[in-house]
Every structure is written in structure tokens, then in C-alpha cells.
């Protein structure tokens, strides 16, 4: 059954969903795409962020997004710490590929278990004024629960993009994986640059986590569900391209939404991964790889 009404609505819903996916993928786009660190634990950090937002909301009634913003600097510091460890243990020894991957696997477990120990595995959710509302524009409905995270995500993209494009350290982050020595010849310290970049990536997880818990209830192992999706988006968008990540997230969101609406929701995830497989096979540098 096809109507234009449904089509436009699916498009809008998909774009909103994609906007949210983008927020979750942004951090990995920085750490994996720009810094060449396969941080498979990224979704675990997002979940950690979601729990922080939950705590703020549950204990003091803070707005989850606000909590996310406040937590971001703390996450930044955690990221810096994790990178230091990673650097000392793997990167400096030039031993990062497989063992680094396994390391982040371990980190993912540790984050998850700590959360399980602290909160159990019940689904948690938050309260906020924008959860539950819906705007009708003509025949198109926009749930505010999706709209607000999407907007925050785009704002976060804009902020990160501006930072990377406009500041010296930001530009160094963009360059560090392309030529480490050349960057040193620009008087930059690649290790410090990567440290800032990794911190930034993990910092976005605090906000992405807040958005996640606004959209769906969460429990500690939800993060694993996102590993594939998030990697799909980052690879699809092209490693090293922040804007590509945003576009890929939107494409994936819209694709899922369209398939969900017109074909059958149960095929939606397969569509995403099929697209990824095809992209990997045909164009490994991603849609917007440069």
C-alpha cells in the first residue's frame, strides 16, 4: 500500500531517526574515521551517557539533554584517559590493529558490567516535557520525542564540525591519521592531538546517550545492538568525513523508515547491513570518502 502521505511521513520519520543515529555515530566518526582507532566500545560509552542522563533526571529532575551537556566534559576526561592507556599499551608499540580491537572489546564488557552492577538490567527511561508531543504540519506528523534529539544532534554536528574546521587543534585532528610526521612538522604533537580527538569523540557519547534515553528505554546491553549500525554508518559515510557520517546516518534512517513503512519492518536492519556490505565491496572508501 502506497500513498504519498505515507511516503512523506516515512521520509520525515526516517530523517529524524537518522539524525539520532548520527549523534551516536559522531564519536566513532571522529575516533575511527579521523584517528584510526577502532573504538568498538563507543556504543558502551553512549549507554553510560544515557545512564548519567537517567540519574540526573531521576534524582534531581534535570533535563536529560542538559545533563548530557554537563557530563560531556567528564566524558572528555575519560576519553583522554582511555586514549593514554591505549597509546601506551598499543599504539606506541605499533601493535594496535587486532589487539587494540580486542582491548576495546574488553572495555565494552567492563563498562557494561559496571552498569549492570549499578543498575541491574531493568529498562530505564526519563521524563521531559518534549517527550510525547506531536506536531502536525499538514498531514505530516513530527513527534517531538524524535525531533528534539534530531535537532540536538544536528547542533552537535555543527559544533563539532566548526571546531574541527576552525581551530588549530581541530584541523590537526582531521590531519593526524593522514600523515603523522607531517603534522609534527607543523609543530603539533600527534599524541596530544589524538588525545584531544579521542576525548572529543567520547564527549559526544555523553550527549548521544541522553538522546538515546529520550527516544527509547535502555538497559546496559542495548549498546551492543548499536555496534553494527554505528560502524555501518561511519564506514558508509566514508572514513574521515564528518559530514559524510551525517548524510549516511540520514540515508540509513530514511532507508529503514521506508522499508519499515512499505515493505516490512523486520527487514529494516538487514537493509542497513546489506547496504553496508555492498558499500564495502564496491566502494570501501564510503559514499563520501575523499
Amino acid at each position: 500500500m502506497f500513498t504519498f502521505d505515507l511516503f512523506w511521513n516515512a521520509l520525515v520519520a526516517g530523517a529524524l531517526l537518522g539524525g539520532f543515529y548520527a549523534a551516536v555515530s559522531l564519536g566513532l566518526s571522529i575516533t575511527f574515521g579521523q584517528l584510526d582507532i577502532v573504538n568498538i566500545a563507543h556504543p558502551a560509552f553512549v549507554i553510560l551517557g544515557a545512564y548519567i542522563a537517567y540519574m540526573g533526571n531521576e534524582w534531581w529532575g534535570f533535563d536529560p539533554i542538559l545533563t548530557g551537556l554537563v557530563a560531556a566534559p567528564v566524558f572528555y576526561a575519560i576519553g583522554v584517559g582511555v586514549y593514554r592507556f591505549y597509546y601506551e599499551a598499543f599504539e606506541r608499540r605499533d601493535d594496535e590493529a587486532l589487539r587494540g580491537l580486542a582491548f576495546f572489546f574488553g572495555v565494552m564488557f567492563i563498562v557494561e558490567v559496571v552498569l549492570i552492577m549499578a543498575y541491574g538490567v531493568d529498562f530505564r527511561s526519563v521524563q521531559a516535557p518534549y517527550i510525547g508531543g506531536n506536531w502536525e504540519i499538514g498531514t505530516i506528523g513530527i513527534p517531538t520525542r524524535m525531533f528534539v534529539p534530531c535537532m540536538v544532534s544536528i547542533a552537535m554536528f555543527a559544533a563539532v564540525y566548526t571546531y574541527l574546521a576552525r581551530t588549530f587543534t581541530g584541523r590537526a585532528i582531521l590531519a593526524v591519521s593522514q600523515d603523522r610526521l607531517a603534522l609534527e612538522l607543523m609543530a603539533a604533537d600527534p599524541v596530544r592531538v589524538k588525545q584531544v580527538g579521542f576525548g572529543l569523540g567520547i564527549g559526544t557519547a555523553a550527549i548521544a546517550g541522553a538522546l538515546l534515553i529520550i527516544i527509547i528505554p535502555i538497559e546496559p546491553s542495548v549498546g551492543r545492538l548499536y555496534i553494527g549500525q554505528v560502524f555501518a554508518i561511519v564506514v558508509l559515510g566514508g572514513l574521515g568525513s564528518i559530514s559524510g557520517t551525517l548524510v549516511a546516518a540520514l540515508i540509513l534512517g530514511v532507508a529503514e523508515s521506508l522499508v519499515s513503512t512499505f515493505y516490512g519492518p523486520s527487514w529494516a536492519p538487514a537493509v542497513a547491513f546489506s547496504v553496508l556490505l555492498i558499500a564495502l565491496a564496491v566502494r570501501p572508501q564510503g559514499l563520501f570518502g575523499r
Partner: protein
Amino acid sequence: MTRFWIGAGAVIAIGLLLAVTDIIANSFWFFAAYVVLQYVVLATAWNIMGGYMGYVNFGSAGFFAIGAYTAIVLYNLVKAPLLVMIPLSGIVCGLMGLGMGYLTLRLRGVYFAIGTLALAVVLETLMVNWDYVGGATGAYVIRPRTLEPFGDYVKFLTFVMLVLAVIAVAAARWIERAKFGRGLHAIRDDEIAAECAGIPTLRLKLIATTLSGFLMGIAGAPFPLYVGFVEPASAFNLAYAVNAIAMPMIGGTTMWAGPVIGALLLGTAQQIANVTISSELNLLIVGLVLVLFVTLAPEGIVGLVRKYFGRGR
């Protein structure tokens, strides 16, 4: 006959003896051994690609599950016996492995790993939507209660898994010593140099991925009979993918003994931890051990042993 084959023969003979007699009355040992042995096969299979050839497969769970689902199809179709299921599951997964081998043409390193992850998700979605094998609801496979001369059918399953484990390890050991294995090592070290040394890299990679897939398939084939009820979430359980990587990494990826040691240690410890300590702690320990090993003992237990007792090579 080498020492290895005498050992392998002895292991099978003792296994058979234990399985057909009641020396071990306690069938828990068989259930636990089944799981551990299944991991020996899975870890060994992973290591053929990951350790010998340097291609990381994140999708082991997908192969394991397709092995199990092939068995379910055969069960649903003709109530096929286990000894038919095993080779056919192996062949189906071997063909999947062949397909994955062609991925190596375009994908290296992390990209290949992500590609295998995506492959597993696509396969899971297919199984979820395929009602003939139970779809999301799951499929029941009723195993015979007994099989003579083993008595309890699970004793038989465990014995079969022991034989499969010996086959897998023998295959890995053969590869390690054969021209083929040396070729794989060369590919892991430098694919271009390998090609220029006259090594047909693509053909070797295809054989290795096919073989690895085949072994993962046979590890999964008896699974439906073991649990009796298979649904996608349990067959595609991430634990298989994680253990398939963690076990060789902890044991050591450079020789056949690594995955075996890793699987025996980690698998046994998991079986024990299952029935002793609180599970949240279990998971934390898996994470910590993995982090510890990859940071402090990158060559795994085999590497540590070599380091302290000379290079036994």
C-alpha cells in the same frame, strides 16, 4: 605415527570409553565438556583465518548459527541423523566461507572485520524471517533420549564433538606444518610480498576461509540436538563471536595449541563460573582478562610459555 596422532588417538579412545561406560556417572561432565569442546572447534576454526592468515572474523556466530540452522532444515525435511547433519552443515558454511573469502579481495584489516559482522547480521535477519526454520519463534528439535551403546544421547553428542575437536585441531596442526600454512603465514606477514614469492594468495585465502567456515559449521551442527530448541537470538549469540576471538587471543594465535589452550581454559572457567560465582562478575572478569592479556601478554599463554621456557620450536 607421530606423538600427536598417538595422543589424538588416545584422546578419542578414552573419550569413547568414558562415553560408552558409566565410569563417569555424572552426566554434567558430558554437558560441560560438550560446550568446551564446541569452543575448541570454534576457536581453532577462527584461528585458521585470524591467527594464521591475519583476517579477523567478527561473524563466527553467523557461521555457527548457519551450521545449526542447516541441521534444523535437515531435521525438518527428513529427520536426518546427526552424522548427515555434520558434513552438510560444514559444506554449507564452507560455501559461505568461500563467499567471505572473495570479500578479502576488496577488504582488508578492520574493513574485513566489519564486513563479517555485517554478514552475520544479515544472516540473522534472514533466519528471523524464515518460518520454515522457526523464524523468530524458534524451532524445536527433539533429540532421541538414548543411543546405544552410549546410553544418554548427550554422551554421544559429546563424543561426536570430541571427534570434531580432534579433527579441527588436526586440521589446524596440519595447516601449520604444511606448505599451505606457511603460505598463510606469508600472507599474514605481507600479502604483496607473498604474491611475488610465487604464492597464489587468493587461492590460499579462499581455501582458508572455506575451511574455517566448514569447521565453524560442524561446530554448530549438533547444537540443535544439544539444546533442543533454537531461536535466532541464541544461535547467533554474540558470545560465540566473542569467545571465538578471545580464546585464541588468550591462548596464543601463532600455533594450534593456542586456541585449544584458550578454549579449554576459558571454556572450562566459564562452565565453572556458571555454577559458582555471580554472573555479573563473570562478565567483568572476561573483560578484564581480555584487556589484561592483550596488553600484557600479546602472544597469549603459548607466548608466555615460550618466553619462559625458551623458544620451543
